[in-house]
């Protein structure tokens, strides 16, 4: 590319304006971004002057012509990018002249887009800014030097602070000039020259904190007007802006010439001291600590406000020594001893009493002080604190007194314990866990006959009865394992060889067992005696009861027997007289009496619950209706009988005869409770008992039928009610009742699975309720008792063996059987019966008593008989339900029972029934017949 061409093209590119630009002396450069490398297309004279590159060396070169290796690549790249993209921008780069010298170049890029009839181009104006750059560097250097200076000053200030004196000044009053030393200059921010030559005196106040201005101006004003001493604390602002507390001390120096008078002084940084003082002040106030400072030889003491408060004085800053010491108790050391001090560094602490002038109260104080040498005056100062220790003194006193009391108590307790040990009637032992006795009290001699000395070192288990040794060892082991306390009884051997029952309480402590034992031998014997006495009493009561029973029964029986015996005698007499027409009367009378006797024994058995109940489904309402007439007759005309029978009453399962009997008994009791007449009500009801109610009633939960007999009679006391069911308990006169009625009903109800309850109050009548368990079904109509069939004659040769030890019974049974046409063989006991059974006599039936003398009972005879003659039938006639003998449950099919006493007809029909049934299925059952 030719120079001329380029120069010629410039006006074409930029017009006349650019031409003016090019001649202005600015360094100008034009590139063509449209060509690869964005080459330089034009440079002006200014460019050549700045860079040393003539146009011929620049034009056509890459636009990065001036870049040097130390040019910042990032800025250069940014510049190139702006050019290429046609963006304007300003960049500062370190460029290289043609001769290699570096310079700082500010490059301003102006892209010119293509116009009509001309291509686009980029123009750059270069400015040498090296000078500006170097100036900046100088500033940086200046700044760092300033910082160094500041640091120096700071160090100086710190050094000054450390030395105490911060600055000193000299104020010439007439001349109104204020001069200061170098430190004053530093504090006030003055040059050394200013400080030396003097500044206006107003400068003095320039750094004082506004809040302190007025105060200090006043003080200085005082000096200027003739006051001699200046001593003030105030805040100043240092050149770095920090606020410090200073203490300025000064003096006015008078000169002959008034105007030559001067005010000189120094200030000391007391900021830290102030802080400490503030903290100290707070601490003093909070802790009730008063401070003081006394310069030896002075009459006054500088004190804090708290100091005055502790002493009970009016607040003051200075107090006369005499005033302070006058408060101290005459026997105590003075608060401050005016005597010559012992020397610096000496610390003294004393305690003393004072009498507070404000309250007159005596208080204990402590003073702690230290002697210090004053640096300025060389005086010896005594500086210290006082505080009230009355509370702790009192505490000490209380503690001391408590301690004395405690000692006295301990001594007392020890004496108590010793007394206890010596005088106790109870055995006290100390033993190791292995049983070795290490101490015993004198009671051991009384209890065991061993002296304390004899027991020492012995094994306790040598003394313990072998039967209790193991149990005692277990207790010892438990104590060794940490059980707090053990109580056990054992027998210990006395010296004389007898045994004593000892009840021990033992506790473990400090590796030993401490045991206290009480001799309970006597108590044990007494308990045994008591038990025996109770047993005897119970026996006596039983005998009394038996006596009462026997008496009652004997009375009834004697009456009945009188009737029977009398009737029989009359019968014999009438038969002997041949007056047979009158015989029947006596027979009837004897039979009646005998039947009543039978009923009596039946009741006795019922009471003993050994009656044999014959429970059957029962309709209680029907039963009551059936007996209503009987009851009415029994009650007599004075007593009304009503029934209240529940509709749809459930059926129950019980022995109807017993129920009847029970109801009759209750009605009779009701009657006896109403000597002046009244009302008896018999009521029935269904009762369903839930769990809770049943539990309360002592019954099983479920459905029950209740039958209640109420009267309007005298009622029962709670005591009577409690014993109502006791056997033989009766409220009736002896002979009128057996005391068995209610007891028997109770037995019946319980045996039937029910219960009986009394509700009664004295004067308000009694209600007795029998509860009987509900049964599923009603009785069937035709279950009416089977009446004795008319006796029919026995078959030919049929033989019955009768075993009974009672000849009368044997005789009766034999006669009845012979009446019926049977052969009868008698045996008095088992042995005799066996002989018969072993013989070849024909036997169709064995009739035997159950209870027999001679070793075999009826059951055993029957079993033996069945062994010899299988198929043999047995009829047990018994006055006593020997359940054990006959088997508790179902009777075997060959076993039959007839209770004594029995009607002759009942015996006859039973025997015939048995023999007939036995013949039907098995005609060959008979041993004899087969023989």
């Amino acid at each position, binding site marked *: 590319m030719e120079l001329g061409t380029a120069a010629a093209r410039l006006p074409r590119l930029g017009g006349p304006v650019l031409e003016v630009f090019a001649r202005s002396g600015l360094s100008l450069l034009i590139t063509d971004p449209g060509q690869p490398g964005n080459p330089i297309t034009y440079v002006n004279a200014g460019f050549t002057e700045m860079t040393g590159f003539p146009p011929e060396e620049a034009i056509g070169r890459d636009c990065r012509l001036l870049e040097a290796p130390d040019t910042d690549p990032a800025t250069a790249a940014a510049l190139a990018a702006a050019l290429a993209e046609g963006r304007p921008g300003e960049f500062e780069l370190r460029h290289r002249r043609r001769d290699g010298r570096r310079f700082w170049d500010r490059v301003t890029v102006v892209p010119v887009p293509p116009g009509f009839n001309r291509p686009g181009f980029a123009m750059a104006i270069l400015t040498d800014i090296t000078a500006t750059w170097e100036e900046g560097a100088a500033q940086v250097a200046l700044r760092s030097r300033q910082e160094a200076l500041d640091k120096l000053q700071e160090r100086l200030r710190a050094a000054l602070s450390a030395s105490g004196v911060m600055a000193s000044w000299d104020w010439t009053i007439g001349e*109104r000039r204020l001069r200061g030393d170098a430190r004053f200059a530093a504090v006030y921010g003055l040059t050394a020259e200013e400080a030396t030559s003097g500044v*206006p*005196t*107003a400068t003095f*106040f320039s750094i004082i904190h506004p809040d302190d201005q*007025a*105060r200090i*101006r*006043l*003080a*200085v*004003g*005082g000096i*200027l*007007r*003739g*006051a*001699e*001493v200046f001593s003030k604390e105030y805040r100043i602002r240092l050149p770095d802006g920090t606020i410090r507390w200073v203490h300025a001390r000064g003096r*006015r120096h*008078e000169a002959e010439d008034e105007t030559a008078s001067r005010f000189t002084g120094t200030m000391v940084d007391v900021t830290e001291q102030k802080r400490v003082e503030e903290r100290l002040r707070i601490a003093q106030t909070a802790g009730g600590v008063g401070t003081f400072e006394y310069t030896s*030889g*002075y*009459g*006054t003491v500088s004190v804090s*406000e708290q100091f005055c408060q502790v002493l009970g*004085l*009016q*607040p*003051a*800053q*200075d*107090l*006369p020594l*005499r*005033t302070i010491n*006058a408060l101290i108790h005459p026997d105590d050391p003075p608060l401050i001893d005016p005597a010559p001090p012992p020397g610096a560094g000496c610390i003294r602490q004393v305690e003393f009493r004072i009498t507070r*002038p404000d309250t007159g109260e005596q208080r204990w104080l402590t003073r702690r002080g230290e002697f210090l040498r004053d640096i300025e005056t060389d005086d010896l100062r005594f500086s210290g604190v006082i505080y009230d220790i009355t509370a702790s003194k009192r505490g000490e006193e209380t503690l001391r007194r408590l301690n004395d009391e405690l000692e006295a108590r301990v001594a007392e307790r020890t004496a108590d314990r010793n007394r206890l040990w010596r005088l106790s009637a109870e055995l006290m032992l100390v033993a190791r866990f292995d049983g070795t006795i290490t101490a015993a009290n004198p009671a051991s001699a009384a209890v065991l006959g061993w002296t304390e000395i004899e027991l020492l070192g012995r094994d306790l288990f040598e003394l313990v009865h072998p039967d209790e040794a193991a149990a005692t060892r277990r207790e010892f082991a438990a104590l060794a394992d940490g059980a707090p306390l053990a109580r056990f009884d054992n027998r210990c051997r006395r010296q004389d060889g007898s045994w004593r029952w000892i009840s021990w309480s033992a506790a473990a402590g400090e590796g030993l067992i401490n045991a206290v034992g009480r001799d309970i031998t006597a108590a044990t014997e007494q308990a045994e005696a008591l038990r025996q006495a109770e047993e005897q009493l119970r026996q006596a009561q039983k005998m009394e009861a038996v006596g009462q029973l026997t008496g009652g029964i004997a009375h009834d029986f004697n009456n009945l027997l009188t009737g029977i015996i009398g009737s029989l005698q009359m019968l014999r007499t009438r038969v002997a007289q041949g007056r047979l027409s009158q015989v029947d009367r006596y027979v009837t009378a004897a039979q009646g009496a005998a039947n009543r006797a039978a009923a009596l024994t039946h009741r006795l058995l019922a009471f003993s619950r050994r009656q044999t109940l014959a429970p059957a489904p029962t309709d209680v309402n029907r039963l009551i209706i059936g007996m209503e007439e009987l009851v009415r007759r029994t009650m007599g005309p004075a007593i009304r009988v009503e029934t209240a029978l529940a509709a749809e009453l459930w059926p129950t399962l019980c022995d109807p005869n017993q129920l009847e009997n029970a109801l009759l008994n209750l009605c009779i009791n009701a009657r006896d409770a109403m000597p002046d007449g009244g009302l008896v009500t018999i009521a029935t009801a269904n009762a369903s008992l839930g769990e809770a109610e049943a539990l309360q009633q002592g019954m099983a939960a479920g459905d029950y039928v209740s039958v209640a007999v109420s009267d309007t009679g005298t009622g029962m006391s709670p005591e009577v009610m409690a014993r109502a069911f006791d056997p033989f308990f009766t409220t009736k006169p002896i002979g009128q009742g057996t005391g068995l009625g209610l007891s028997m009903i109770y037995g019946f109800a319980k045996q039937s699975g029910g219960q009986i309850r009394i509700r009664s109050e004295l004067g308000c009548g009694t209600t007795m309720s029998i509860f009987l368990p509900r049964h599923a079904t009603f009785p069937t109509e035709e279950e009416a008792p089977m009446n004795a069939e008319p006796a029919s004659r026995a078959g030919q040769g049929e033989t019955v063996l009768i075993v009974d030890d009672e000849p009368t019974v044997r005789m009766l049974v034999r006669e009845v059987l012979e009446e019926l046409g049977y052969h009868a063989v008698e045996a008095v006991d088992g042995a005799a019966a066996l002989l018969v059974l072993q013989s070849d006599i024909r036997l169709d039936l064995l009739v035997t008593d159950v209870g027999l003398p001679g070793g075999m009972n009826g059951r055993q005879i029957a079993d033996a008989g069945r062994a010899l003659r299988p198929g043999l039938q047995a009829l047990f006639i018994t006055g006593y339900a020997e359940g054990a003998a006959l088997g508790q449950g179902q009777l075997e099919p060959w076993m039959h029972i007839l209770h004594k006493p029995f009607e002759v007809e009942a015996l006859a029909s039973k025997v015939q029934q048995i023999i007939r049934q036995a013949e039907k299925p098995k005609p060959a059952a008979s041993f004899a017949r087969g023989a």
Partner: protein
Amino acid sequence: MTPRVSPLLNDLERDALTELVNIGVSRAAASLRKMVGGEVLLSVPSLEIIGHRRAAALIQEREGDELVAVRQEFGGAFQGRALLIFPRANGMELVRAVLGEELTPAEAAAMEDEALAETGNVILNSCLATMANMLERSLTMSLPEVLRRGGLSLLQTAEPVEDEGLVLFLYINFSVQNRSIRGYIAMVMDLSSLETLKRLVGEFIDRVMQDDIEA
């Protein structure tokens, strides 16, 4: 906390009054130096305005009943009585310090009252005159008299004053010929005089604050 300052004067006024007294005692010290021919320093560490009963109790409490005082009446813009009070032993010390050690005890005793009156006059006069001067008011003073009494009767006026009677109570430390002597200045004034004093002190403060502007 017992208020140290009567609400009558604010902090700044109290400071200003203390400075005024300081200027006064400085003048007195200068006079005493001339009299004694040795080092004399006086300073007023504290100032209180309290009822005279309390002032009496204060002295009584600190010094007991053995007091000696120099009393002078003053009149002018504000009026009242000024007392320089010492414990009796201190009074004798002052006399010895002023008159010199070479006196025999008998001579000293004979001259005691005269010396006390003179010294007291120097101090009280300097104090009050300087104050009046600084406050730009004139003041007249009576001749000094020496009193030996208890605190309360010292401060009580001959004619009964209403209870409002207040005392400008100053504690002064003397250091005369290296002897430490303590004493009190009590200025007994009625309320109206104190009000005047307060006003004048205010004006004084204003003047002091103008110091720089003059400079």
